[in-house]
């Protein structure tokens, strides 16, 4: 008997290569961001990089603007995506089953190519590249990420609750605000996280959609990281972004594991 349990317990060692891998390529690199943020180019400790950020008006305004754009994009995606997810998940509307798949399909196509195609479309119809184009492009890229988790939670929702509410005399609006909406909140949270996080950290897209006129925080980080003598300052900006990401993912941590594992 003892031997059996020995073998069973020894199987947890199978994860060790992966744990080692995670420590080396996930934990250590993240620590390195902090390390570079607090050192000078020749490796001495400093807080100068942080002070520079707080007096660097371009960085601050870019940061505020990026968060603003990300929030705006998240709100737009939510307003457009929730009704779509609701219609698809609600059996009363008899939506064809392919519809959900069609909404997810664009996620599998290279987002840069989609962005370039959007730019070409704007050129074709004579739409000026700028803030409007940026918002459209971002919404276009991330809308499926909002629809999918909300659709998932709505579909898994217990329909009998809705019926019970109806039987007890609630009208359609009441059923929605008192039953459906609260029950779908986990999906909404994870949708918000899945849209907000990539938007706030996006680079490249903004550059293409605005003719390089509007700079987002991601592009700023990219600029500093790729110029080697400003690498430490770039690390500070990354660290700030990381803090934002941490706060957002904490906010969204109430959601279950339903959103990412089963994309196929």
């Amino acid at each position, binding site marked *: 008997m003892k031997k*059996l349990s020995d073998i069973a317990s020894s199987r947890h060692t199978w994860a060790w290569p992966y744990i080692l891998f995670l420590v080396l390529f996930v934990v250590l690199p993240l620590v390195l961001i902090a390390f570079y943020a607090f050192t000078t180019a020749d490796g001495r400790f400093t807080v100068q990089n942080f002070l520079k950020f707080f007096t660097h008006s371009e960085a601050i305004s870019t940061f505020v603007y990026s968060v603003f754009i990300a929030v705006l994009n998240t709100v737009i995606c939510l307003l457009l995506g929730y009704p779509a997810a609701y219609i698809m998940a609600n059996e009363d509307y008899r939506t064809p089953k392919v519809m959900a798949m069609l909404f997810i399909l664009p996620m599998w196509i*290279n987002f840069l190519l989609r962005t370039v195609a959007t730019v070409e479309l704007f050129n074709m119809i004579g739409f000026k590249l700028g803030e409007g184009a940026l918002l459209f492009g971002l919404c276009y890229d991330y809308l499926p990420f909002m629809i999918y988790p909300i659709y998932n939670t709505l579909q898994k929702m217990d329909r009998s609750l809705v019926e019970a509410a109806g039987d007890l005399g609630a009208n359609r609006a009441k059923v929605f605000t008192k039953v459906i909406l609260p029950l779908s909140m986990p999906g909404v949270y994870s949708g918000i996280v899945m849209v907000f996080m990539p938007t706030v950290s996006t680079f490249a897209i903004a550059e293409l959609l605005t003719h390089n006129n509007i700079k987002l925080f991601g592009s700023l980080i990219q600029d500093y990281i790729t110029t080697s003598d400003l690498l430490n300052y770039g690390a500070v900006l990354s660290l700030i972004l990381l803090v934002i990401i941490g706060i957002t993912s904490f906010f969204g941590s109430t959601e279950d594991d339903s959103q990412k594992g089963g994309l196929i």
Partner: protein
Amino acid sequence: MRRLFTLLLLAAGMMAAAQSNVQYELRVMAEQPLQILDTFPQPYQTEKINVTYQDGTYQLLGDTLAQGADFVVAAEAQAEWRAEFDSIFAFEAEGKHFVVWQNNRDIKNAQKRARAGNARTAFLTYLREQTVAPSRMWEYIGMGAAALVILLVVLYAVMLLRRKQAEKSMTSVQRETLHRKIADRRRRLFSQTYLWLLLLVLYMPILLILVYSFTESKVLGNWTGFSFQLYGNLFLGKGGEALNSAIINTVLIALIAALSATVLGTLAAIGIFNMRAKQRKVVTFLNSVPMINPDIITGISLFLLFVALHVSQGFWTVCIAHIVFCTPYVVLSVLPRLSGMNPNTYEAALDLGATPFQALRKVLVPELWPGMLSGFVLALTLSVDDFGVTFFTKGSGGLETLSTFIYADARKGGLTPELRPLFSLILILILTVLVFVNIRADKKAQKKA
């Protein structure tokens, strides 16, 4: 779906017929006062000077260093123009002399030269083939839409009249059920229209690529007749050396990353499953970190690691980076299979004399296979799709994957035409796989029921 495709082909045919003479249009936008700027000036469309030429009638003046030019233009030129002219050329239009720098990044240089030559600076947004057809096309679309709206209104009025007539001979109960039915139908119509409109907007750019993969034109948006030329170019490798190597790199990296991630992730999932609750919590949290981290953070952190370790970045650093963000998804696809299987079969195999490796191969892998496969496919697509992480870990040795190739291409102002058929093919492949998977899932669900 088939009907939609026929419609698209019809529309494409109409556009080709409508377009008889191709013109070159030079749109010079926004004359700016002379000053050195880091980026494009903010409201860059203040004035338009339209200079339209018939094909080939523009007058080339050669490289003049802006001496005597009225305008110096920083232009974003399409690839074929770049090949046709030098990076600097000049032309004359409406009695004005223009000098063009075909690189929109080179504004400072253009302005320096403009100042030296006492000229003004202008920005030419596009120097490209432009057909006359699109404007007509929008006219037709507008007219068609108007006709459709009128038709719908007439139909609705007729329907309303007929219903009023029918209602006269009904009891009040009948009338009520009818009204409820109508309200339901109206709600359904409204919601389905919303979904289809949203889908149409989402798919517009993708359809654009799909449609224009069947024409030879080097520029997206210019239909020069139906042709399979680009598909031929793609398969014969005529899309250019850079594109070919980008495709090969993408495939190789995706295969290496997905395979390693599947092996590493499956073993890790088995390990995590057999851990005690506390340990398991820690490792699952670690596992979720690469999924939560945005591309840019994963990319930068690995970039810093490779810099700190003095590893020269290239093919293998990109592979490692891809394994980093792919493996968590494999772990998450395998874990549910583990909790669904009989925990005693592995031990039974050992008791019957199998070595742990044999037990893994003969007992565990067959059970976990579906999870491993979906993890593998997910890893494959994630790797092919990735841009952010690749961008920071590819080093400066000239390694390009498809994503970074597209980025570099788009920055230059054009898109290699052969990318269009390539992505149309990928789209069709993904569509087929998704349909196949969904049908299989449906069948399974039916069997269960």
